[in-house]
């Protein structure tokens, strides 16, 4: 294994004294801000400079839980016993699933994929219930995109579609998309036009120069209208208003501005992927972005949620060839969203054992999926107690990545960033737990080395 998990750890401070960790990385959201200065006292973060409200809540509430590192059937147990039991659950299952991983460093994600491979299991990440549909859309039309620094330096028209960064990615505007002064935008916000398209007037809408309020479940129609307009196709104003809830003139004006800008950017969120149309919505948006490159430069980027959900996509893809929802039951990777994705393997009652890592399906999944998960033996790794850890056969309380442990995370634009741990935890890291489980899994199925 890579030693990078601990490489950037700083020496522990002596009691009572203050320690400052510069350029620490916040992993609470996909912005993955790597400019946080942490002040640590007595193994506690007391200040998180530059972090937003979500980031502060993340850093300042990391207090070590008053919980055992391992619980078996709800009873405190030794880690060794937990590892043994976990390995047995995974090996004995006929259809074991491993799910989550969006709040784990890549080093741990890699081990999770290994385990799935050894047990002929299914590996899926929270991508499947976040931008999985955008991943499918990407496989349909591709994507024109860029790193966030390009947005800073060139983006003069910034659009958000079905995304509310003011509440989900609070530093998005100030750090990357609206406010920064960039190489070719010396006046920052003044040099940019901001357009927000949403079904409700979110907190983000206040930041917009133009707010377009579309009908719920009409994202596809709105995007398709723009595609038509980009190609100069005449549209019926009555139909457009009826289908999108927005006047044709508004769409026409928007297209005019989109063509006139130098470097347009559309950030899109789960307003597209979670609603009727799902991947068709994302595909329409990616196709529109592509179309726009016949007139000017235009890029699109999903606003990814969790700190390392982008890393999960990358790790699963480089190891298996597919980004999420990967099944190994035939001894090699197969991919089929809607079949091997966790919402489906659970709701359809197929999985018979599992492991969840840094995710909470018992709170976030549909009733039939939750009911099924509650009925099968599974292992849960989380930093805190959640509905999912409560119902697990084996629950590990793990150290928090980016606070207690190092490693690598990928920002929403696929830029890999190292973590700088600041505190110590009595609990093992998820890398450690997964490595131990992998070792036992291999022994149980007769693989040496």
């Amino acid at each position, binding site marked *: 294994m890579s030693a990078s998990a601990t490489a950037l750890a700083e020496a522990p401070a002596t009691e009572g004294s203050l320690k400052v960790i510069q350029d620490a990385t916040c992993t609470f959201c996909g912005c993955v801000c790597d400019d946080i200065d942490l002040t640590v006292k007595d193994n506690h973060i007391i200040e998180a400079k530059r972090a937003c409200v*979500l980031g502060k809540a993340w850093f300042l509430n990391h207090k070590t839980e008053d919980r055992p590192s391992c619980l078996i059937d709800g009873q405190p147990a030794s880690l060794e016993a937990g590892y043994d039991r976990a390995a047995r659950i995974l090996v004995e299952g006929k259809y074991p699933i491993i799910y989550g991983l969006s709040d784990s460093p890549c080093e741990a994600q890699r081990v999770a994929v290994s385990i799935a491979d050894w047990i002929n299991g299914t590996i899926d990440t929270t991508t499947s219930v976040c931008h999985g549909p955008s991943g499918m859309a990407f496989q349909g039309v591709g994507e024109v995109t860029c790193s966030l620094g390009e947005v800073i330096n060139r983006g003069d028209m910034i659009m958000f579609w079905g995304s509310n960064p003011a509440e989900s990615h609070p530093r998005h505007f100030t750090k990357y998309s609206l406010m920064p002064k960039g190489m070719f935008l010396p006046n920052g916000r003044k040099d940019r036009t901001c357009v927000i398209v949403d*079904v409700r007037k979110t907190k983000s809408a206040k930041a917009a120069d133009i707010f377009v309020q579309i009908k719920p479940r009409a994202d596809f129609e709105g995007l398709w209208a723009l595609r038509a307009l980009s190609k100069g196709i005449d549209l019926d104003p009555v139909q457009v208003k009826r289908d999108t809830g927005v006047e044709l003139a508004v769409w026409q004006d928007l297209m005019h501005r989109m063509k006139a800008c130098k470097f347009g950017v559309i950030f899109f969120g789960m307003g597209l992927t*979670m*609603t009727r149309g799902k991947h068709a919505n994302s595909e329409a948006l990616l196709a529109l972005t592509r179309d726009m490159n016949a007139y000017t430069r235009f890029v699109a980027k999903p606003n990814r949620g969790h700190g390392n959900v982008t890393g999960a996509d990358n790790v699963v893809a480089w190891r298996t060839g597919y980004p999420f929802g990967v099944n190994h039951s035939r001894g090699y990777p197969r991919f089929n969203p809607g079949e091997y994705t966790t*919402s489906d393997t659970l709701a359809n009652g197929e999985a018979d054992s599992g492991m969840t890592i840094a995710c909470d399906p018992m709170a976030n999944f549909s009733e039939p999926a939750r009911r099924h998960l509650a009925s099968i033996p599974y292992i849960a790794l989380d930093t*805190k107690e959640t509905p999912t850890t409560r119902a697990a056969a084996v629950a590990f309380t793990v150290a928090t990545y980016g606070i207690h442990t190092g490693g690598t995370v990928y920002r929403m634009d696929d830029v890999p960033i190292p973590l700088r741990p600041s505190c110590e935890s009595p609990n093992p890291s998820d890398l450690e737990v997964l490595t131990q489980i992998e070792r036992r899994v291999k022994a149980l199925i007769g693989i040496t080395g």
Partner: protein
Amino acid sequence: MPETFILIPGRTSDQGCGISEGKFLEKYQREINSLQVAPGDMTRLGIVAGDRVRLTSEDGQVEVCVVPAKADELPVGMLFIAYGDISSKLMGGDTHGSGMPTSKGIDVQMELIRPAAV
């Protein structure tokens, strides 16, 4: 007679902070159990802040507490709730071959459980 609304579950600041602070703590629980309703709808239906309502979708039923949506954040006919345990109970298991259940833009019927105290 319950009326049909479109429910949008989504992220909020308090919900996000609550994840870090603890999912069993009051702040998080309050946030994910609060339903934002457009002021216009509240007046029309005689709902006041703090009322409990029952939401019924094709796939589930929950009871939540009403808070008025701010200013013009919500158009009439639309409801908003912070994404979490409660909102997910209204979601179906079918992903339509996408891996993603329909988790936003869900049709729900809303009915008042008890009239507001006079």
